[in-house]
């Protein structure tokens, strides 16, 4: 099991007070995680000692920066077990990953009447880019429904996933229900009808071992800031032969091989998809992030979060009128989105904040999911490797006080 006390010492922010004498209880890691010292220092060292633009600078600083930036890519490739570092495209965030595929692969491969299959539990990042693509092309977006437990209902999958389906893009882990979806089974089903697959791993890569070769997915996207890493950097993984065949997304420096007044030709992978000066400090920071997580151990992190989730669901069940949405703890990642009688999540979150407890209230960028539940918003507590059972206890106490204030 993780030594949580030791891990907490790696995160400087965890000693901060929300308000004078009110220690911070940070339960919003699904929105954005905290960062360990090792990551902050990797970026700081770059900025203070070898800051320079990357690629083709023939001086020591630039060579060091290029080496560190490309080493980070290789680390990420190893972390998700990509065959080749060229399959790791650095983007701003998971969202840009979906947009890149929807523009580049989508423009070249989607025609009127084609179908794009998503699920009803997707984050907007995995809905809106496809809707925009479908609008441009006259294609159709369809959705796999979820059941009353927040689990995908696959009983009609054969009607939704057909030879008209050009791509099936779905999340590995729901950011509201916490549901861990059967990724390999869904990919196999997509392959059976010849559909491409894209995995939203924004809530998966930070929390469990992920192996893109084992998944055998075509594309997969995630964000640095949710996995103890920097903002401004994320990853699009794509199979090499697909990326090779795709036209570029953005144009500019670094992504070209040759530019003339008439036309341009493209650089090799992965740079073909990285236009302009990249997020250098952030890429280097992501390399340190992957080192940190690997050192702790992704299997250990996952196991610990499973424990926390069980603990949390049991503890929350003691709050009268509270309902946690989604499946039971055994099928769930460290996310508990709940409602408390008719109280508005904004009121709950604001009152919890006065106790130093940071939770998120809203639709968590999953409006279709909430609409289906008949809710405008939920309150969400989410956990990570630095979360303790004592913090969950504080959440439960806070919720009891919210009930009192509202005279429930």
């Amino acid at each position, binding site marked *: 099991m993780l030594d949580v006390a030791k891990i907490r010492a790696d995160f400087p922010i965890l000693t901060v007070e929300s308000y004078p004498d009110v220690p911070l209880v940070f339960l919003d890691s699904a929105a954005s995680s905290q960062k360990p010292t090792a990551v902050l220092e990797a970026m700081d060292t770059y900025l203070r000692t070898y800051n320079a633009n990357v690629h083709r600078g023939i001086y020591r600083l630039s060579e060091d920066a290029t080496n560190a930036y490309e080493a980070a890519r290789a680390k990420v490739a190893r972390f998700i077990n990509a065959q080749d570092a060229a399959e790791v495209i650095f983007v701003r965030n998971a969202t840009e990953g979906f947009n890149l595929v929807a523009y580049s692969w989508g423009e070249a491969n989607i025609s009127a009447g084609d179908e794009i299959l998503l699920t009803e539990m997707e984050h907007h990042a995995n809905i809106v880019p496809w809707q925009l693509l479908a609008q441009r092309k006259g294609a159709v977006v369809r959705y796999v429904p979820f059941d009353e437990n927040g689990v995908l209902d696959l009983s009609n999958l054969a009607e939704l996933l057909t030879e008209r389906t050009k791509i099936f893009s779905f999340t590995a882990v729901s950011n509201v229900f916490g549901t861990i979806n059967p990724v390999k089974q869904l990919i196999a089903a997509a392959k059976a009808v010849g559909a491409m697959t894209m995995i939203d791993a924004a809530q998966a890569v930070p929390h469990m071992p992920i192996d893109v070769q084992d998944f055998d997915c075509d594309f997969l996207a995630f964000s640095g800031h949710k996995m103890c890493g920097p903002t401004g950097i994320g990853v699009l993984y794509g199979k090499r032969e697909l990326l090779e065949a795709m036209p570029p997304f953005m144009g500019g420096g670094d992504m070209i091989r040759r530019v003339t007044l008439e036309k341009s030709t493209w650089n090799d992978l992965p740079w073909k998809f990285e236009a302009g000066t990249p997020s250098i400090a952030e890429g280097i920071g992501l390399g340190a992030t992957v080192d940190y997580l690997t050192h702790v151990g992704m299997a250990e992190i996952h196991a610990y979060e499973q424990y926390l989730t069980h603990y949390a669901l049991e503890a929350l069940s003691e709050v009268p009128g509270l309902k946690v949405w989604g499946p039971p703890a055994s099928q769930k990642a460290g996310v508990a989105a709940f409602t408390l009688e008719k109280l*508005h999540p*904004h009121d709950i979150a604001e*009152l919890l904040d006065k106790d130093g407890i940071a939770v998120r209230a809203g639709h968590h960028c999953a409006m279709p999911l909430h609409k289906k539940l008949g809710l405008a918003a939920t309150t969400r507590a989410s956990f990570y490797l630095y979360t303790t059972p004592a913090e969950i206890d504080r959440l439960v106490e806070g919720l009891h*006080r919210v009930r009192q*204030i509202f005279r429930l």
Partner: protein
Amino acid sequence: MDSSMYREQIIDLYENPLNYGELDPADFSYEEDNPLCGDVIRIDVRLDEQNRVAEVAWSGDGCAISQASASLLTEEIKGLTLDEVKAFPKETLLELIGVQLSMARVKCALLSLKVLKAGAYGLPDPEEIHPGHKE
């Protein structure tokens, strides 16, 4: 817990709102929601011969702040002229609410005023401005 924000008055108004309901017909009505939190407020107003607010009712759903704000605002505008309604300062409403609000919650507090003014100015139904708005 510093629950000064949620002082008694707000919880009272949340439990027992003032001027809750609908007026049909009304001289002007408007409804708008904040999709981010699901707050929705509708306000109906009847004017008298001098164009003063004779009757006002609000309905909707939302957090304690937006609900209390709607009660306080509708109470406050009774007897005001249409022009006074159009010029109603948001500072006054925030003072009526009387608790310290964070940036995110100021929006909740001001939703009722936004709806009231949109109605007073005769703005078109938001459905026309933001299609797909009220489905």
